[in-house]
């Protein structure tokens, strides 16, 4: 992780189809900051997050990471981000443990079984580690997906509706995890329709309209 990571969005504009979602969007996010993207359905929250990841090509503007365009960073930028979208990216046929080990492996993290088990237990999946994910509930699947945040050492968390299907206890846990991540100098940008408060951190709000 770099000393002071910084994400700059400069005059960004995105379209879907022929429809302009947003334009002239600029903001800077530094280490230790939390940003919530707000807006009604269809205002481009997910598109913005996907543009940050590079899935969506912006029509205009640029995304800079530590002063350099992310297109120049390429894989090195990806090494410092962890994206969690609407899809959990977990396999029904595999157990929670196998899923975590494989997704971590694909992200370039060589993870020991012990560390993976610890992460899953932290996410409240004790005794569910070896069950095939297919028998878990939606909330538990989401927890499996979220456990990736614990094992991937990324400075920038991009979370699209991370609280979907989570119960009250898990929402508290997420707030705690984001708090820890921020105090370690990381940054988080997320969307949610549920309230999410991290103790001691002021949530910056970005309204897409």
């Amino acid at each position, binding site marked *: 992780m770099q000393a002071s990571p910084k994400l700059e969005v400069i005059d960004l504009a995105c379209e879907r189809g022929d429809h302009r979602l947003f334009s002239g969007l600029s903001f800077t996010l530094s280490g230790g900051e939390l940003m919530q993207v707000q807006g009604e359905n269809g205002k481009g929250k997910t598109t913005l997050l996907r543009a940050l990841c590079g899935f969506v090509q912006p029509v205009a503007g640029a995304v800079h990471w530590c002063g350099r365009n992310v297109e120049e960073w390429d894989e090195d930028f990806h090494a410092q981000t962890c994206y969690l979208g609407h899809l959990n990216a977990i396999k029904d046929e595999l157990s929670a443990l196998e899923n975590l080990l494989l997704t971590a492996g694909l992200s370039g993290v060589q993870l020991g079984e012990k560390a993976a088990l610890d992460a899953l237990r932290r996410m409240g999946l004790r005794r569910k580690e070896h069950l095939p994910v297919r028998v878990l509930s939606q909330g538990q699947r989401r927890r499996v997906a979220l456990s990736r945040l614990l094992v991937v*050492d990324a400075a920038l968390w991009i979370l699209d509706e991370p609280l979907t299907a989570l119960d009250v206890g898990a929402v508290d846990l997420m707030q705690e995890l984001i708090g820890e991540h921020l105090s370690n100098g990381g940054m988080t940008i997320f969307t949610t329709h549920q309230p999410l408060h991290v103790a001691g951190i002021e949530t910056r709000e970005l309204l897409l309209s």
Partner: protein
Amino acid sequence: MSRLSVFGLLGLVIRRDLLLAMRRRADVLTTLIFFVMVVSLFPLGVGPEPDMLRKMAGGVLWVAALLASMLSLPRMFSADHIDGTLEQMMLAPQSLTIMVLGKIVAHWMLSGLPLVLIAPVLGLQFDMPADAIGVLMLALLLGTPVLSMIGAVGAALTLGLRGGGVLVSLLVLPLTIPVLIFGAGAVEAVSGGMDAASNLSLLGAFLLFALVFSPFVAAQALRISME
């Protein structure tokens, strides 16, 4: 952050796909059973004269292998696309081309390799001589990976399209004609008392060519499909 070496990543992707296939064995068996069925239908359809069967054996086996390998192509990337794993693969700080190559190798091990192994049994059904069976296996061993590689490009291009399953066959089958010609040609050459070396060399050349270009092209096609 520690990164995997190229071979470490390749091994991880192959292991992952094989593990998934082992948990869902039906998919692997359908390809194999389809191959056996199509080949077995020919003697029933054209009559059991040994001379004729021996003559058409190579072509029949190759066409059946071509069709069988099309069966599993639509699934190559679609499962990963639907559950979001493909997004994560693209975000990984590692080469997508290598991951695609891993998926191609796994696909071949699950859909191409079983065909190579069962081909001699089906060859006997057509009363093929031993040396022709040997060449058939060798030709399939060189040719079926090419089918997986060309197929990967087609599967990546049609990802997420409605009716993509049929479309990928229509897209890929014409491109596999050279493999069919030289694969069946190798068997025919041996049956006719000639040397199969030139046909096999050309199949080997296709294999090398596809190995170099197809993972990269398929990875680019995936990026386009994801937008």
